[in-house]
């Protein structure tokens, strides 16, 4: 994997408090995708996960499912998304990851999809229903050919042995799911599986970790950052987009509730 990948560059530069944000492409309005990315970078996001909406997102909770439904109604599709992202690298420098389910990627054509990702400047992919064994047998060669990191998940139930296996197959970082849940479950800092975070930290993995699921505010963000290189906010941000303010006000307002100005 080339060190030119922006994900590796980010983790070389910054080992703590990495602020990563997920949002659903085409939500709340079809053409909000690009300005949302630009505004997130301007407001201090280190990494962005762009959600490709799917009709049946089983790993997601109600907020992201609802945003996906709206985005699809707005006319969002993978084809449309690539059109929107065509010139994104003229204005955005931070790493960009596409996150979505495997079926729309299959229908687009896996190689065509990977190629297009490389063309527009995508650095990695998170596909929750593409399990490790299928990835290794059918997808890895293509992901690598087009310089894309595959970001795999681990959960409190993942055995040490499997975490090692996932670490070996990963490049970029590992997505550490905070608790047994779908996205958007409200965590209190006290709900954190500290023993799980500590167990993972003692495994001396080669890949850095970001913690996601249930990170919604400064308290949960700061707490997650104690145990990993940073944290990912999804549902709480998507929820904040549903307000009658300008996109800029919504985004800068939300970011201030989580991190101090850069």
């Amino acid at each position: 994997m080339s060190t030119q990948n922006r994900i590796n560059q980010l983790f070389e530069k910054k080992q703590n408090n990495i602020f990563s944000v997920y949002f659903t492409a085409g939500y709340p309005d079809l053409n909000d995708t690009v300005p949302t990315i630009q505004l997130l970078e301007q407001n201090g996001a280190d990494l962005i996960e762009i959600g490709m909406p799917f009709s049946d997102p089983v790993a997601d909770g109600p907020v992201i499912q609802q945003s996906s439904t709206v985005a699809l109604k707005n006319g969002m599709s993978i084809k449309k998304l690539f059109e929107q992202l065509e010139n994104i690298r003229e204005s955005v420098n931070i790493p960009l990851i596409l996150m979505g389910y495997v079926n729309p990627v299959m229908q687009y054509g896996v190689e065509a999809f990977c190629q297009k990702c490389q063309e527009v400047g995508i650095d990695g992919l998170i596909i929750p229903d593409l399990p490790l064994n299928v990835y290794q047998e059918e997808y890895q060669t293509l992901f690598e050919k087009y310089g894309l990191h595959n970001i795999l998940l681990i959960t409190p139930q993942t055995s040490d042995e499997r975490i090692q296996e996932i670490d070996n197959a990963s490049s970029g970082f590992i997505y550490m799911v905070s608790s047994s849940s779908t996205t958007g479950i409200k965590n209190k800092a006290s709900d954190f599986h500290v023993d799980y975070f500590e167990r993972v930290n003692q495994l001396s993995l080669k890949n850095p970790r970001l913690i996601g699921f249930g990170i919604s505010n400064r308290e949960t963000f700061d707490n997650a950052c104690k145990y990993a290189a940073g944290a990912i906010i999804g549902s709480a941000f998507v929820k904040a987009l549903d307000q009658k303010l300008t996109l800029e006000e919504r985004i800068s307002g939300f970011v201030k509730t989580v991190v101090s100005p850069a």
Partner: protein
Amino acid sequence: MKYQVDKKGYYGEFGGAFIPEMMHPNIEELQQKYMEVINSYNFRQDFIQLLKHYVGRPSPLYLAKRLSEKYGSDIYLKREDLNHTGSHKVNNTIGQILLAKALGKKRIIAETGAGQHGVATATVCALMGMKCVVYMGALDVERQAPNVKKMRMLGAEVIPAVSGNQTLKDATNEAMRDWIRNPVDTHYIIGSVVGPHPYPDMVTQFQAVISEEIKMQLDEHIGREYPTRVIACVGGGSNAAGAFYHFLENEEVELIGVEAAGKGVDTSETAATLTLGNVGVLHSSRSMLMQTDDGQIVEPYSISAGLDYPGIGPLHAHLCKTHRAKYLWATDQEVLDAALELTQLEGIIPALESAHALAALKKIELKPTDVTVINLSGRGDKDMETYLSHFGY
């Protein structure tokens, strides 16, 4: 053994386990243990005893004389409609509840469309004293109120799924989410031959009792263990998988599945997945499904809630692709006609799902010497309102 699942959980190119990592421990446990558990002596004993004394098996194989006369060919009905809870669904829920107990699980979740699988699950949970949560599309909760009340009386909690179109697909999504949130003590009883490996094979094994009995019963009736053909309706495909199973390797037996065409395969209101779908991944397995060019799942339609599903079990996708089985479709109107025909010729009111299999009689050539077995997967009590509104009695 061309039609058995392989070690990785595939039938040809179909099947597998496209699961999020959150489901990995549970699915891995099932994959590693299901064969061992269901082949163990204790499990076999309990399963066979419950099917006999609790479900009422073997279900009769009945020569439908007046129906046969009308079509000029012998037609046998496998009477799964006479099972406890009114359909074949209970064969699977008995098997899975015993498996869940063997794995030390304390809590059961299930999805349901029309409520037949939900009732069959709530029933075995009452029998075993297990906590039961059933997810059902909010729209189906309204449409199938009597089954909702039955499940509640049986002690189950029925949770309406309010996402999507609020039908079977959405109930399945919610059940999967529940399993993700409750990874330790919960077993998910999937109602059909769909979902990640090992579910398609496991549910097939539990339903295979249907064709096992057909073989023995045919021997009694005609002195031969196999018919000319077997016909069954297909939504996810569990009753068809069970009715086909012991005939798969005997290529002399013609296997016919019948999908729900709804208002017609040339309309958007249909559920004929194999006729109209293409390859994709839904609910963790690679199979045929109804989807847009962008890979979004298309909402299906059928008069029968039990066949109202945009996917199909991977075994059927494989049998279709290899031409081992033939898949036809029947429209709502053809199904209503077939249901009325059976009711008035034989005094048996079939479930709307099963009436799809009956509707195939008009679509195939029947020779006088043929022996046709139709799997009558369920009874029509739950569909009385639909029948009455169409026939105007």
